[in-house]
């Protein structure tokens, strides 16, 4: 009877190394390809890297003001963000409002609130999205919308810093 042969360790190692080499070649080749311009055919034909410039802008000076329930603002304020795609490629945008202190997020949990948004932009397309800060439920829950008393002020005022993080990604 023949003795039990050992697993071909050398063959496995060689195969793994081959894979790594192939992966490296593939990735490197891909990266170089993104910066290569190649022209073929008639003299007026050319190939170049597509332009890319996706941007978002919104007011950064002057706060977003929210006033108590029962007023015209009714505990709600909006914040418009303009999104612009000056690229030659379509892009997707995903945005989220983040707070320096995450506990502040609970202040804006009203039904009409909108703290995230996303969508697509075609080349050279401009659009506007609206963030909605809804404190109506917070004011109601805390029963602080009626100030009343003698030498006694109830209610609450505050400033909540926030960031709108907009991430753009090229669509294939």
């Amino acid at each position, binding site marked *: 009877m*023949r003795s039990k*042969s050992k*697993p*071909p360790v050398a*063959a496995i190692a060689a*195969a*793994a190394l081959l*894979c790594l080499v*192939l*992966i490296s070649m*593939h*990735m490197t080749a*891909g*990266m170089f390809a993104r910066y290569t311009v190649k022209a073929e055919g008639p003299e007026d034909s050319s190939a170049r890297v597509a332009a890319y410039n*996706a*941007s*978002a*802008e*919104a007011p950064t000076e002057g*706060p*977003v*003001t*929210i*006033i*108590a*329930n*029962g*007023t015209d603002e009714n*505990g709600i304020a909006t914040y418009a*963000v303009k999104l612009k795609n000056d*690229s030659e490629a379509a*892009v997707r945008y995903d945005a989220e409002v983040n707070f320096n202190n995450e506990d502040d997020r609970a*202040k*804006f949990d009203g039904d009409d609130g909108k703290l995230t948004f996303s969508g697509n932009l075609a080349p050279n397309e401009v659009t506007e999205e609206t963030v909605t*800060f809804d404190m109506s439920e917070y004011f109601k829950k805390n029963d*602080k919308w*009626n*100030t*009343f*008393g*003698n*030498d*006694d*002020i109830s*209610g*609450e*005022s*505050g*400033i*909540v810093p*926030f*960031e*709108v*993080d*907009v*991430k*753009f*990604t*090229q669509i*294939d």
Partner: protein
Amino acid sequence: MKKTKINLRLIIGFALILMLALALIMSGTLAKYTNKIIIANEVDYTNQLADSFRLLDKPITVQEDGSYTVDTSSGAEPMSGFSYKLIPGVMLPASPYIEIVNKTVIPAYLYLEIDNSGAAELEMDGSWKLLDGVSGKKGGTVYSYGDEALVGEAQAGATEETTASGSQADDDVLTFTTFIVKTLSKIPSETEGSVKVYAYMIQKVGEQSAKDAFQAAPAP
């Protein structure tokens, strides 16, 4: 033995295909255009009607002839700190006023509730209007400061000092001028002879009148 060799080749083959596919996906992802933009700002919120709301007065001193005068040289103090003897036939001048600091843009009505136990007659300033048929939170008579709600000029949370609209004796004080105990209509017992003044500021919700807003508000 032969069966084992075939399995090993299969495993290596699958692994190779899997790694190539993975490399393809990764390289495609890395090559995409991406960027991230951060826009910073802040939310400024309030449901306060003002930063401070107090009922103040200046002390009254007795003169040699037995009359009383307001000590204008003294600074105003919270009205709860005053205690005077109401003497029949003697007029007690007083000029309590309401101090409102940093009135916000939230509209609100201003009220006075007077509970004098029937022991005194008060002369109210003309700006105050009796709310007929309204019982005070403490059982007294209720007056509103005009018919219009007060609205501050400052934005919510603004740090600069602002005042309520309406007549003002000083830059930052809203007053209802002189309030005089004219004469006592009867000789009161010690418990009857009190005059209590309460001031309230209540948010105007929607189109509420001063009377509606007062009645809708809970007792303090």
